[in-house]
């Protein structure tokens, strides 16, 4: 009986341990990395007049975090504390997002070089930020006939760089499956960091002006 009584905490311990060692998407670190890159690309001149506060973490609640709430009881908290002692801290710590690979540096530089030319069309409303972290022609009529193919090529190049950037950040951090999460994070940060007057797509794909 005593054995069985003592077994329960250890079973719970094992269960909590499984939850703790899950490597879930580091939303806060990814957002910080995204903001660094987006600000670098958009440049200081393009910074928004008033910076929005970063969205709270709960807005990115995922299944794994929800799962952790189930175990959020005094007993499991205590057991979790024990596990934290037993399991190396690295497993529980929020991982950083590495954005220093040569490919990421090149992509950032290419995007930053293109920014001045893009900004004119962001401001006019011809181009806007899509809700999947890319750029799209919002209103072709706002671009002179002569410049349309130049702008379309610029959009294709920008989107090529953005897609490569999201994939490369995921790959450089050894987690290719994070690509969609990284893209979603960037999609939100591009809009937050965009200057007033820029156009962006809301969650339903409708265009809105900031």
């Amino acid at each position: 009986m005593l054995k069985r009584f003592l077994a329960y905490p250890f079973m719970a311990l094992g269960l909590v341990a499984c939850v703790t060692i899950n490597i879930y998407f580091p939303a806060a670190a990814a957002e910080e990395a995204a903001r660094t890159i987006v600000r670098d690309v958009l440049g200081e001149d393009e910074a928004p007049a008033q910076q929005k506060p970063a969205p709270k973490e709960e807005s990115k609640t995922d299944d794994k975090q929800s799962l952790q709430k189930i175990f959020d009881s005094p007993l499991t908290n205590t057991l979790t504390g024990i596990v934290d002692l037993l399991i190396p801290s690295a497993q529980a710590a929020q991982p950083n997002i590495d954005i220093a690979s040569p490919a990421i540096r090149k992509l950032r530089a290419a995007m930053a070089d293109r920014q001045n030319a893009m900004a004119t069309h962001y401001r006019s409303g011809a181009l806007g930020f899509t809700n999947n972290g890319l750029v799209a022609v919002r209103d072709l009529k706002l671009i002179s006939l002569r410049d349309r193919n130049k702008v379309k090529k610029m959009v294709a190049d920008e989107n090529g760089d953005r897609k490569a950037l999201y994939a490369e950040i995921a790959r450089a951090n050894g987690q290719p499956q994070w690509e969609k999460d990284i893209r979603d994070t960037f999609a939100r940060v591009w809009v937050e960091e965009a200057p007033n007057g820029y156009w962006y797509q809301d969650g339903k794909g409708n265009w809105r002006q900031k």
Partner: protein
Amino acid sequence: MTKEHLLFTGFVALLLLILLSMPSSAGLQMGLSIGSLNATGWSMENVRVDLELIDRNQLNLSLAADSFTHQALPGVLEGIRLDCPVEQQQQSYVCNQGRLHIANSDYGSQDLEVSGVFVDPEHLSVDIQGMRFAHGELKIGIKLIEGGWDASLHANRIRLESLPGAFIKDRLPKGSVVSGVTNLKLKASGVMDQAEAIDLTLKIAGFAYADVEGLQVAEEGGFNLSLNAEQRGSGWMGKTKLSVSKGQFYSDPFYIEVADEPLHLQLAGRWKPGSDRLYMDESRLLLPKVLESRGRVVIDTNSGELVEAKLRLHSDDMGALYGVLLQPLLIGTMADEVEASGLMDSVVQIENRELQRFHASLEDVNLDDSRGLFALYGLNGQMTWNREPHADMSKLSIEGGQLYRIDFGKLDIHAYAQQGEARLNKPIDLSLLQGTLHIDQLNAEGLLGEQPQWTTSAQFKDISLQALAEAFDWPTMEGMLQGTIPRVHYQQQRLQLDGELVVDVFGGRIRVGDLLIEDPLGRVPELYADLQLSGLDLTQITQTFSFGHMTGGLEGEIAGLHLSSWEPIAFKARFNTPDEDKIPHRISQRAVDNLTALGNGVGSGLSSTFLGIFKEFRYNRIELKAILNGDVAELDGMPHKSGGYYIVKGSGLPRIDVIARNRQVAWKTLLERLKSIRVEGMEMR
């Protein structure tokens, strides 16, 4: 001409005949009122005809009606009054200065000049001018001769934006905007209700058009259009000529600006009513400075698609052709940034809506990718592609070019291309880097599908390391390399080596295995490979790198090599003296200095010590290990009891050991050391 029409016309004519045939009836008046006159296609309400005899040969005809409708006219004409002085001339009745007043219509009120000649109901003519229409003026003429008819319409300074919807706007996509000023001359002739010939000339200035999405747009357009068509048997034959003298035109994704030289389009063809095919037996399109096209085409009138075509395309300027017609289609691909020049003459054959044959003659064509991926200069020859198996071979000669910044020399390509396949007919010998690349075979498949793939194999001979180093901006090297590329396979943006790439260099051999390049032409090429080095001669290597003289053998490996955007981000490398090395081991002062610097960044300063009198030292073993993971490289060598590690373990007297202390170094720093070669923390003894 309907029976009712004949009846009414005949009735008025009868009145005229009666009046004018009376011997002395000056001042005689006759009137007729009809409540409603209906016939197929037209009707009049409250019609009154008044005739007043002036003298034996003249009378005044007045016709008034509350309303008139006709199936060919939009809306209702209201308050109609026609006054016409009629004069008898032999067998005809002539009205030269008639006036037609219409109080209200869809085109406003009208006060028109009317003239006409009446012989009998089948022989008459009417001319109406002064009609105000869409801010311009119309002149209409109708002539009936023995069951046939001629009609003419002259329109001057009509504003397209003011035309009633039925004329243009209702026929255009919703939300479209059109404007411009047009002059039009139309002549048509026919029998009964069938037209038999049409002759149209149209001139438009200041033409502008835009659909709601901006995908089809014209600005400041000016053009002339002529069209002649006539009925032949049960069908029509005709020709048209369009000459665009100015304007900017965007038809997604193409943009054409016409300024100095006009754009011409000439078509001659035939069409049968009820058929969904338009046969253009002759066509000529001239895009000034870009392209001239001649040939025949068959068009599906329902979809607008080319069903069949045989066209000859000629361009004197491939740059303009690429910029106007090709680049817009290639946006988003790796070929959307090419500078081109040269001449092209080609034949395109389409059957059953599919391209069946393409043949091009190229003359002094140059293609240069602005991203620096490739360049081809002095391209001449014939290119042929057929959907069906054929015996025509493509023969191209290229004076030179570049691939990944590597210059290559003249080459000849003989190849077959059919369906989705292309293959070399004979091997290619490519001169590059002062040596030769011999390509045995090159086969491409699935070129028409979504997953094209190709395979090749090659050997390279006498490639100059100095030229290779210069091409990639590497440290100066000397020597030659030979090698074999077994089978390279490219599919789904992955270039994979099936087997080992063997390179004979520095007196030994480098084997490159598991070579994989993902997205080699993309934004972030990723290269993975494992390298094995064996039997290398340090004498040749150190001569090559200007490293300082060393003798001895060298072997090693670079496992898990991973390049991203052609920069290393991971590998596990080891270089060491072979265990059974029989070559004498000597290392010069300078080489010691440089190896020392490689470890930590500062040279040994050997020359300032008493050891400076010795030019060379003997050594027992050299070993250097490096593990790169991201930005940090971890260095190691042979273990040393003090905690450091030997890079060079000396022997004999004077003995010199190179012992490094630092194990971790930023990759960036290590690269800088390779360039400057100075170290700290080295121990010399």
